[in-house]
């Protein structure tokens, strides 16, 4: 049982079972079958129930399946840190768009990824990130006449 706690499938199954239960709960508040036929709750109720069933099956599989190799395998924290670091940088970039606008926010994202995550020299980081942002403006905003997010500053 303790081995199951180390498996991603166990936790993913639990999360999906919770999602399925939430879908079923919400669907109970909508019309299931009305005078005109099935209502808004009909389809979600069925796929919600199916989701609960299969996610519990996955949890059961993670608990019952004896898979020593899988239980021994641990997460590579360094890889995970890099991927989540990149994601967090993107989240901050999106959050800053309203204030800084696309040009500055994207340049900062590019600089962070190149200089901090890939440990490239500042010269390369600045030229690629600012050059990339400038290229996007030239291609999309100026060339294709598409609007890019603008902020209070730019």
């Amino acid at each position, binding site marked *: 049982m303790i081995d199951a706690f180390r498996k991603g499938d166990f936790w993913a199954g639990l999360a*999906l079972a919770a999602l399925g239960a939430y879908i079923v709960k919400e669907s109970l508040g909508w019309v299931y079958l009305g005078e005109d036929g*099935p209502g*808004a709750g009909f389809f979600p109720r069925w796929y*919600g129930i199916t989701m609960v069933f299969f996610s519990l099956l996955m949890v059961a599989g993670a608990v019952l399946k004896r898979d020593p190799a899988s239980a021994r395998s641990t997460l590579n924290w360094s890889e995970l840190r*890099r991927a989540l670091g990149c994601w967090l940088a993107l989240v901050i970039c999106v959050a800053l768009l309203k204030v800084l606008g696309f040009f500055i926010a994207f340049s900062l994202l590019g600089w962070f990824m190149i200089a901090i995550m890939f440990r490239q020299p500042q010269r390369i980081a600045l030229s690629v990130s600012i050059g990339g942002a400038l290229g*996007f403006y030239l291609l999309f905003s100026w060339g294709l006449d598409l609007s890019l997010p603008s902020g209070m500053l730019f």
Partner: protein
Amino acid sequence: MDVINGLMQGFAVAMTPTALAMCFIGVLLGTVVGVLPGLGPPATIAMLLPLTFKMEPTGAMIMLAGIYYGAKYGGSTTSILLNVPGESASVVTCLDGYQMARNGRAGPALGISAIASFIAGTFGVVALMLVAPPLAKLSLAFSSPEYFALMVLGLAMVVLLAGESLTKAILAMLVGLWIASMGTDLFSATSRFTFGMTNLLGGIDFVVVAIGIFAVGEVMANMESSEPAEMLPLPKGLRNLMPTWQDMKDCRFAFVNGSVLGFLIGVLPGAGSTIASFLSYGVEKAVSKHPEKFGTGVIEGVAAPEGANNAETGGALVPLLTLGIPGSGTTAILLAALVLWGFKPGPLFIEESPAMFWGLVASMYIGNVMLLILNLPLVSVFAQLLKLPGYAMYPLILGVSMIGVYTASSSLFDLGLLTLFGLMGYAMRKLHFPTGPLVLGLVLGDGMEKALRQSLMMSQGDIAILWQRPIPAVLLAIAVLLLVVPLFKKFNAMRVQVIDQEA
């Protein structure tokens, strides 16, 4: 006769300067994304889709389709030179292609790959042109129950063939259905799963989910490691790229095998080009006079899978255009593109939009010729792309993703959703959940619910309508069999394993 007239009309559309330019841009971009590991056609098409909203739809579709089949050509370059598949369909090419390159035959491997791709790709387009119109006429008899059953069968096949775990594939598909039902229900005006947010009343834009799952998720997965693969030297000059006459003779059956098998697998929803290439490699090995040499660098081992994954493209467009049922993540995005431009892929598509259908078919003939020219003499130029460092590529992909989402809706809220779906795409990769069923569930979810509800309205709530009519009954029976048999087999295998361990 109709086919010839249609094709003539198609060439009139595809030979205009704009259409030719769009075709060239599409196949060029396709080759580039095929060459670059870590950037696949679904991500590229999803990112570029919003940018095509202001374009003329036929030209835009020609470009997006060009990316789709162009990537199949480019994917082999990385497989042969780096032993890293540029896209999933080129995995099998690594087996013999890389070995040929190690034996100093990288040139003929790349050459035969381009030639097989051209032959099979062209065969796929011919077959598409001949099969699609009669199939569309046949499916005119389809009503809501038939469509519902067809979508269930499509999803069942995608789920069945999506990955090693059937349960995970089903769960991914169900999450896709859930995302599809977010927003206002058009039958009853009920808000569903909006979490009280007005931004979600219109539902979640397909583009946001597709770009998040494919592009952002892929960048995050690639960011885990920064170690570049080692590339084998590429021969210079066209003469060194051309296979010998003996090579061509050895590949005669591989060309036929790849073309026919690739197309047939393509027509089946869910099977996809990876399975097509694996199967044709297996058949090639099975009929070979020297099966033991496969994996050591035999040229048929490159020609068969490369041909199959290109012929599959033509096959995959058959159900997409005539039934409105996509068979993979990439074709699901193409379906979304057609719907967003106001087209209705389905039985009446060829009749209602002949310029789009025949223009696309004709452009694929032209595109295949362009790709042959691009991939034979210019392969060394594309190979240089492999030297493009990740630190320059990944921020740019994120930039294009953000622009793609913002262009579609001008909404910063959607950009926030993009980050969430990016994280979801990464988590799915880490936990080995296939992404294809999710995207297909999302694309088909709305239509599937509509078809089911319309069917039940037709029968005044009697669900038996789904098995009282012959076509839906057969389709649903096949879908149930497809899903139930492996579950029992798996349960049995698990049971046997447990018993063995107890003993």
